[in-house]
């Protein structure tokens, strides 16, 4: 006569339950990882990760972020770049003009404290840390005025620190002879 199987103890039941729950948790984590990998490889979505330093004390004197160079410009190769200085408590310029459905690059720098921006209705979202250039590549799909507030508390005037991203249809995006495009020039 074969020996009787050992009785199932409550410890045994709980161990089995924990093992099953661990498998469910691993499946949930795997599903989220697959979704993130899909976004990164197929949709080309990733956190902005450019590490580029700039001297915050000479920001307005350096070549890139001088006043005349701020705003949207179109390079000779067609690359559209917008340069914005975030400072207590405003953005310079306070409105940037960009075309819809074309790749654009946003470059931000701060001469004073840590700021941050997001563009409403899009995935554009980055910190702006003094000493670094924050760079975001994106494509705006819908024309319209999008708000771009500072989302990092930067002082008493933080709530007033807001700018506009004016996205226009590509046929209405007409840079001037120097390749500059401004909201007030339309």
């Amino acid at each position: 006569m074969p020996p009787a199987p050992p009785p199932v103890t409550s410890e045994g039941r709980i161990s089995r339950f924990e093992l099953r729950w661990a498998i469910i948790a691993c499946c949930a984590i795997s599903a989220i990882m697959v979704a993130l990998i899909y976004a990164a490889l197929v949709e080309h979505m990733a956190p902005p990760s450019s590490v580029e330093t700039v001297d915050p004390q000479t920001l307005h004197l350096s070549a890139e972020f001088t006043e005349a160079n701020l705003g949207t410009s179109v390079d000779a190769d067609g690359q559209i770049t917008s340069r914005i200085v975030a400072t207590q408590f405003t953005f310079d310029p306070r409105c940037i003009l960009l075309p819809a459905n074309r790749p654009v690059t946003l470059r931000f720098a701060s001469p004073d404290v840590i700021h941050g921006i997001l563009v409403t209705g899009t995935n554009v979202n980055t910190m702006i840390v003094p000493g670094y250039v924050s760079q975001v590549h994106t494509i705006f799909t819908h024309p319209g005025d999008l708000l771009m507030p500072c989302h990092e508390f930067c002082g008493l005037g933080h709530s007033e620190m807001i700018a506009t991203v004016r996205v226009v249809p590509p046929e209405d995006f007409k840079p001037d002879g120097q390749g500059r495009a401004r909201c007030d020039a339309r």
Partner: protein
Amino acid sequence: MPSDDELARVLAEVPRGALALTGLAVSLLLVAWFLIYVFVFIPRGTVN
């Protein structure tokens, strides 16, 4: 003082309740995460 049999019977029931509670909580969290991923994050477009 419950007997060992009574204790074993209660402990046998405990994982089912825990599974129902954690299963519901984690399911709701996952559903909310994927709804935001599919209907908000992906349509908002590329950024890198």
